[in-house]
C-alpha cells in the first residue's frame, strides 16, 4: 500500500532510513550471517586452525543425547506454559467480563505482574519455594510434602513454569478480555432469551468467536516460552538439577560462553533461527487471513 502522492526523491529518504539500516546490518544481519558461516566450521581449542566441515556440526548435534534432551525439556516447558497461561487467562477474562462491579479494578490488579522482569519473577518465586526458608516449601512440609527444587527435577520444572506464568497470564488476560468485550451484546442477549446460561453462552458463542485470538496468543506464548524465559531459568535453576530445566536457549548460552564450543553453539543458533522464522511465518500468514475477514 502506498500514498497517492509522494515527496520528491533526493538524498533525504536514504538519510531517514540510514540509522535503522546501519544498526540492523551491524547488529542483526552480520552476526546472523556469522552464525550461519560458523555453524559449518570446526575450530580447535586454541582457535588457531579452522576447518570447513559442511554439516558435521548439525550431525553431531542431532546425535548428541544432551541436545535432544534439551529439545524435550523445551517442548515440555512451552506446552505447559502455553496451556496453563491460556486457560487460566481465559477463565479470568470471562469472569472479569461477567462481573459489572469492580471489573476495572480487577483488570488493574491482574495486569501488574506483566511489568515484572522474568528474572525478578523467578527470584520472587524461588524465595517462596526456597527449601530452607521459603514460606510455600514450609507450608508443603506442614502437609507432609517435601519440596526441594534443587534436587527434584519435576519440582524444578514446576518452579520455572510458575514463574513464567506469572508474566504471561496478565498478557493473555488483556487480549482475551478485549476479545470478549468486542463480542456484540445482542448475540449474548439473544442466547440468554433462548434460555442459555452463562456457561453455555460462553462455550457456544464466546469461545468460537475467540478462536482467532486464541490462536494468535498460542503462537506468542510459544515464542515467549522458547526465547524470553532465559532470565527465569538462569535466576531460578541455572538449567538444573541435572539439566532438567536446560532449554534450547539456555544451552546455546552455556555451550557458547561457558563451553566455548563455537561451531556447536553456532549450529544451535541456526536451528533456533529456523524455529523463530517458522513461528513468525505462521503468525503472519494467520494475521493476513484475519485482515481479509
Amino acid at each position: 500500500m502506498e500514498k497517492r502522492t509522494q515527496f520528491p526523491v533526493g538524498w533525504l529518504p536514504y538519510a531517514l532510513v540510514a540509522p535503522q539500516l546501519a544498526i540492523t546490518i551491524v547488529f542483526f544481519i552480520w552476526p546472523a550471517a556469522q552464525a550461519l558461516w560458523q555453524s559449518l566450521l570446526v575450530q580447535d581449542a586454541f582457535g588457531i586452525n579452522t576447518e570447513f566441515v559442511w554439516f558435521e556440526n548439525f550431525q553431531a548435534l542431532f546425535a548428541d543425547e544432551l541436545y535432544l534432551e534439551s529439545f524435550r525439556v523445551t517442548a515440555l516447558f512451552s506446552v505447559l506454559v502455553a496451556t496453563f497461561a491460556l486457560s487460566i487467562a481465559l477463565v479470568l477474562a470471562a469472569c472479569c467480563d461477567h462481573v459489572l462491579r469492580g471489573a476495572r479494578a480487577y483488570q488493574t490488579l491482574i495486569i501488574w505482574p506483566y511489568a515484572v522482569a522474568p528474572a525478578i519473577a523467578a527470584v520472587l518465586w524461588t524465595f517462596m519455594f526456597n527449601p530452607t526458608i521459603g514460606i510455600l516449601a514450609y507450608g508443603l512440609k506442614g502437609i507432609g510434602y517435601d519440596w526441594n527444587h534443587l534436587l527434584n527435577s519435576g519440582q524444578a520444572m514446576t518452579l520455572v513454569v510458575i514463574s513464567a506464568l506469572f508474566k504471561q497470564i496478565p498478557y493473555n488476560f488483556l487480549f482475551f478480555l478485549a476479545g470478549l468485550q468486542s463480542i456484540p451484546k445482542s448475540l449474548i442477549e439473544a442466547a440468554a432469551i433462548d434460555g442459555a446460561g452463562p456457561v453455555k453462552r460462553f462455550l457456544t458463542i464466546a469461545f468460537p468467536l475467540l478462536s482467532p485470538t486464541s490462536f494468535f496468543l498460542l503462537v506468542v506464548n510459544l515464542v515467549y516460552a522458547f526465547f524470553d524465559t532465559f532470565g527465569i531459568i538462569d535466576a531460578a535453576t541455572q538449567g538444573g538439577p541435572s539439566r532438567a530445566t536446560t532449554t534450547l536457549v539456555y544451552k546455546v548460552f552455556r555451550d557458547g560462553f561457558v563451553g566455548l564450543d563455537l561451531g556447536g553453539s553456532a549450529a544451535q543458533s541456526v536451528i533456533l533461527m529456523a524455529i523463530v522464522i517458522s513461528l513468525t511465518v505462521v503468525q503472519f500468514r494467520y494475521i493476513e487471513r484475519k485482515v481479509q475477514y
Partner: protein
Amino acid sequence: MIEHRPGFTLFCHVLLIASIVAMAFPLYIAFVASTHTAERMVEIPIPLLPGGELLDNYTTVLKHGVAGASTAPVGRMMFNSLVMALSIAIGKIAISILSAFAIVYFRFPLKTFFFWMIFITLMLPVEVRILPTYKVVADLGLLDTYGGLTIPLIASATATFLFRQFFLTIPDELMEAARIDGASALRFFWDVVLPLSKTNIAALFVILFIYGWNQYLWPLLVTTQEDMYTVVIGIKRMIPGGDASVDWNLVMATAMLALAPPALVVLLMQRWFVKGLVDTEK
C-alpha cells in the same frame, strides 16, 4: 449484565479475588522480608507481618549494595537500568518513526529491499545470535558501555511497522495541502506527522520502557564491571548458588526496587500500556 444470577456472579468474584491474592502473595512476602533484619530471615518460619527495618534496609542497598556479594550499590544499578530503559525506548521510537516516514512518504529505489531488511530483524532475536553479536560489540569496544548496552537493541521492526501502519491512515489530503503551502518533507514531518503520532508514541514508550528495564540476557553478556550492572542482573549476582548465606532481607529490598519502576509505569499509565500492548502485536 443480562440476567440476575447472584450465585454465578459471586463465584466469579471469588475466583478473581483468589487469583489476585495468589499473584500478589509473592510480592507481599518479598515486601515483608525487606522490612526485617537478616537474622530474623533465617528463623523458620519466616515472618508474615512487616517489621521495622524498612528504612535501614532500603538505605543500605541503595547506598552500599549487599555485603558479601560483590555488587555495586543498588542506586547505581537503578541508574544504569534507567539509562538503558530510556535510551532503548527513545532510540527505538526515533529511528523507527524516521524510517517509517521514509518508507511511507517517498518512492525511492531499493525501498522494498530496505523494508524487507527491517522485517528480517523480527526473526532474529538476540537469543538466537548470542555469540556473534557479542563478538561484534566486543570488536567495536562497546563492552561495559551504555552504547553497548543499548544500541544493539534499538533496531525494531515492530515499532517501524506500527508507525507505518499509522501513517497509512493519515489522510493524503494533509500531505497535499502541506505541499501546496510549500512545506518540505521534513517540515511536514515535524509539523503534521509528529503531532498526530503523539498517542502512538506515548503507548509505544510505555511498552518499550518496560522492555528495556527488564532486559536480562543482553546486559548479562555485555557488562562485566559491577558498576555497569543493571538492577535486574545485579540481583541475580546477589544470590550465590548452593547454601551460602544470603541476606534475604537486602535481596528482597533490591527485588522491590527492581520491579517498582516498571510496575508503576503500568499502573499510572495503564491506558497507554494497554493500547501499546495491543498495537505492537498487530
